[in-house]
């Protein structure tokens, strides 16, 4: 058949390339900033220490960092590679230019919206899904635009079979859509505030089903797809094994989705689910490594070329890093290793090996190569690219190794007992100050990595300036002849599937739904998974407002609310009462759950009643005054701001519709209840003469700090009433 001429859309690739570089610099800069907050907590107090700036506090900047590097940097980087490779692998221009533009600008708008709303404190607290509901809806719309564009291109392709890279792109689109929608299901109660439709343990399971698979299907599968295009392309070598591609693709997407509960080992999540998380993580090692060896062995025979090609050097370190993290992850899923690593900096180190090497270096290699194609020229400086590679590799090591040391140090300090049964480091702060040197090293490592990245940005700008743009690249290919959709005699099954793209997409969906349904449906329906505790009651209106402030300030970024059933944890956090580890039934009114994933500060699940109201007041005003050496930010604005409880009725009504037992009277009297409870707390605060001297003449019962104190004093106390009743 006669060949058709058409043009590849290079302009859209270029747009994503610049966005990748821009957001990479921004996201890493924010990361570096929060890294320095560990060693200099007052760094951003530009307006003086008694006038801390809310939107520059760690709890608000940390989600900005994670969202920026994941969705802005890696997201744009993945789209850059996908738009370039998809067109060529399918021998077709993207389905629709307008959709491509909507996708690009719509995605940038999400990022800008995130960069504004997260520092303002609009967040749902769920990690890597912090954006509030209006932005969530926008994210889904843009994702669907991307999906239509991808699938539309697949349908109008001139290549009979779809290549393994396209399989991974399909899995990415389908799974992220499912994950994002179901994890973010929430009931809006005002313009930028919503409550998760799931509570407590269920919310935790959904969140980590999402969180784990965001790593799988946003940070892994699209990049594997890119690997399958760019590694053989740049190395000019055939892919090592087609059948390995098939096996590792299907096993990877089928097994990955089950592994989420390994983020919740030793928590109040029922153990049947925890153990599923463990075993599916173990089974994931070889499917992940299948990708690694298929990438590395494709370079068989051209290792001399790797030495001279910066792009390939980046790929080798990236793929090796991928192999390391995907081995370490399953190891951390064993309960005994998880008991050490969970809540420590080991996890932060682990994650950054994955992101800095696998994501960052794959994207860097692709950017260097694409620049030469998009501007039809040589790279401005190979030397600078090599320098980037070296500095970046050192950066990764300087980043990760200190955090491994910090993680182990802290875990052992948390768990160490004296022979007389007391904790050796009873003061949590001892375990923080011990690892400050490691935080310095980490900040240096991060600086190195960012320096390398900026060198790349310069190199690419110079390359673009010396080249000439090729916005539409001419290509030609014959259109597909119509053939029977049935399987021809002798046609291998998978080969047949590769031309039945709709069926392929459906099977991919089925593969990721199996694990999802088996884990989530019983957790929602079987009551024995969350044993009821009679004395656990919903939060009072003031406590609820306080809880929403806790979420707004991102306290959960540093404080867990999950006392694991360890002797050292009940000793430290539950007054040495071995019955008082955190129980599933205590969280049924928690929307969202706030178990946290890292203990930069101590657990706070049973902080209620441990200190008096004055202690909390002074601690928020200046953490160093009550806890010398603390690296917590000052929350001076909580003491100055008036609590905005204007949507308390709609909050309570929303929670009633989700099943919380607030009566009509309680809702009608919510404001009165807030005033009464607040007055009681202010009365307590007035016991401190210093408080009376400084704030005695102010309207303190209306301040935000009062609501937060109310919440903190309620935390973890309900269960004790139940025990008193029983005794």
């Amino acid at each position, binding site marked *: 058949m006669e060949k058709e001429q058409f043009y590849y859309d290079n302009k859209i690739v270029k747009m994503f390339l610049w966005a990748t570089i821009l957001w990479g610099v921004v996201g890493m800069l924010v990361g570096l900033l929060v890294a320095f907050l560990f060693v200099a907590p007052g760094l951003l107090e530009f307006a003086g220490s008694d006038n801390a700036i809310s939107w520059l506090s760690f709890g608000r900047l940390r989600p900005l960092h994670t969202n920026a590097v994941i969705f802005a940097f890696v997201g744009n980087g993945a789209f850059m590679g996908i738009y370039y490779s998809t067109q060529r692998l399918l021998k077709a221009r993207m389905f629709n230019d307008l959709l491509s533009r909507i996708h690009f600008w719509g995605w940038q708008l999400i990022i800008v919206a995130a960069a504004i709303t997260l520092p303002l404190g609009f967040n749902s607290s769920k990690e890597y899904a912090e954006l509030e509901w209006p932005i969530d809806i926008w994210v889904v719309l843009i994702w669907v635009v991307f999906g239509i564009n991808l699938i539309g291109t697949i349908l109008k392709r001139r290549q009979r079979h779809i290549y393994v890279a396209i399989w991974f792109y399909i899995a990415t689109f389908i799974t992220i859509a499912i994950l994002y929608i179901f994890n973010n299901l929430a009931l809006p109660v005002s313009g930028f505030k919503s409550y998760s439709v799931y509570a407590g343990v269920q919310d935790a399971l959904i969140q980590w089903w999402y969180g784990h698979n965001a790593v799988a299907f946003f940070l892994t599968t699209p990049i594997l797809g890119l690997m399958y295009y760019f590694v053989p392309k740049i190395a000019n070598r055939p892919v090592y094994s087609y059948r390995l591609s098939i096996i590792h693709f299907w096993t990877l997407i089928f097994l990955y989705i089950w592994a989420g509960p390994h983020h919740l080992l030793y928590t109040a999540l029922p153990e049947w689910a925890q153990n599923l998380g463990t075993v599916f993580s173990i089974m994931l090692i070889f499917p992940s490594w299948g990708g690694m060896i298929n990438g590395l062995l494709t370079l068989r025979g051209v290792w001399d070329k790797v030495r001279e090609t910066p792009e390939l050097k980046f790929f080798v370190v990236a793929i090796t890093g991928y192999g390391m993290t995907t081995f370490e992850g399953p190891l951390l899923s064993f309960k005994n290793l998880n008991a050490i690593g969970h809540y420590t900096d080991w996890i932060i180190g682990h994650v950054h090996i994955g992101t800095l090497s696998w994501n960052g270096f794959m994207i860097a290699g692709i950017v260097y190569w694409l620049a030469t194609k998009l501007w039809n020229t040589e790279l401005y400086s190979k030397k600078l690219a090599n320098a980037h590679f070296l500095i970046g590799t050192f950066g990764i090591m300087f980043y990760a190794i200190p955090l491994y040391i910090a993680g182990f140090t802290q875990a052992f300090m948390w768990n160490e007992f004296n022979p007389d049964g007391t904790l050796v480091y009873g003061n949590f702060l001892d375990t923080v100050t011990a690892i400050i040197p490691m935080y310095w090293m980490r900040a240096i490592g991060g600086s190195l990595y960012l320096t390398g990245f900026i060198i790349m940005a310069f190199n690419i700008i110079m390359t673009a300036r010396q080249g000439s743009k090729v916005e539409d690249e001419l290509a030609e290919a014959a259109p597909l002849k119509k053939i029977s959709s049935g399987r021809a005699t002798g046609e291998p099954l998978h080969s047949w599937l590769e031309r039945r793209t709709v069926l392929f997409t459906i099977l991919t969906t089925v593969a990721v739904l199996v694990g999802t349904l088996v884990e989530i449906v019983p957790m929602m329906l079987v009551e024995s998974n969350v044993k009821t505790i009679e004395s656990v009651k919903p939060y009072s209106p003031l406590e609820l407002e306080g809880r929403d402030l806790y979420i707004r300030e991102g306290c959960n970024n540093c404080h867990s609310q999950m006392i694991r059933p360890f002797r050292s944890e009940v000793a430290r956090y539950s007054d040495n009462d*071995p019955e008082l580890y955190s129980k599933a039934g205590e969280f049924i009114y928690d929307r969202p759950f706030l178990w946290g994933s890292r203990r930069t500060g101590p657990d706070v699940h049973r902080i209620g009643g441990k200190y008096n109201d004055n202690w909390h007041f002074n601690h928020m005003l200046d953490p160093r005054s009550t806890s010398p050496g603390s690296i917590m930010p000052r929350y001076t604005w909580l003491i100055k701001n008036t609590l905005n409880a204007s949507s308390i009725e709609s909050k309570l009504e929303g929670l009633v519709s989700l099943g919380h037992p607030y009566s009509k009277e309680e809702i009608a009297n919510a404001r009165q209840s807030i005033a009464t409870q607040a007055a009681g707390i202010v009365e307590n605060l007035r016991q401190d003469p210093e408080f009376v001297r400084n704030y005695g003449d102010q309207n303190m019962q209306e301040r935000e700090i009062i609501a937060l104190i109310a919440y903190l004093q309620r935390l973890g106390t309900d269960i004790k009433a139940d025990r008193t009743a029983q005794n």
Partner: protein
Amino acid sequence: MNKNSENTSAWTRFIKSMTKAHDIATEEDIMTDHDYDGIKELDNVLPPWWLYGFYITIVISIVYYFFALRGDYNQYDELKADVVQAKVELEAYKIANPELFSVTNLEVYTDAVNLEKGKELFASKTCTACHLTDLGGGIGPNLTDDKWILGGGMDDIFNTISKGGRPGKGMIAWESSLSKTERQQLSSYIISMMGTSPAAPKAPQGDITWDGK
């Protein structure tokens, strides 16, 4: 072929049998007819080490889950066992070192070294946050006057430090993180500060009078 294998070491033969990678020189034999934008695909067999590894992890997983179903990894039983074990060890330690645990005949230190240590603890253990550096009181009561909420004197002060203040008032129990000697040093330091004149003394609190005699 035979000649070749005689010349290779056992290790090389083992590696070869575990990877089964086709020779690059003759790779055209296993080349598929795929061509995606110039990308070709070989069809090497699944490396045996990889495949066996995968099988092994599946077997480990099944065995692991079977034991888990039997309750072998029950985290709450683990805690119970840990607590029992700790109790046994602590009892043995108590019997071997009775003097570390007895709360009768507590010693009031008056020597400079122990009082200095007590002063250091008072600052480093954050007592100053509530009682202030000069013990004049703030969130917590004034410790320099003769009125006491939970009683003055070595036994009562030591007991308050050990067991914590009244519930909900904020003073935690220090016996889980301070040794007996340290608690004696702290108590002695507080006693030594009786009758001093803090900058802004808080009004006396408590019904128990003890003037240090």
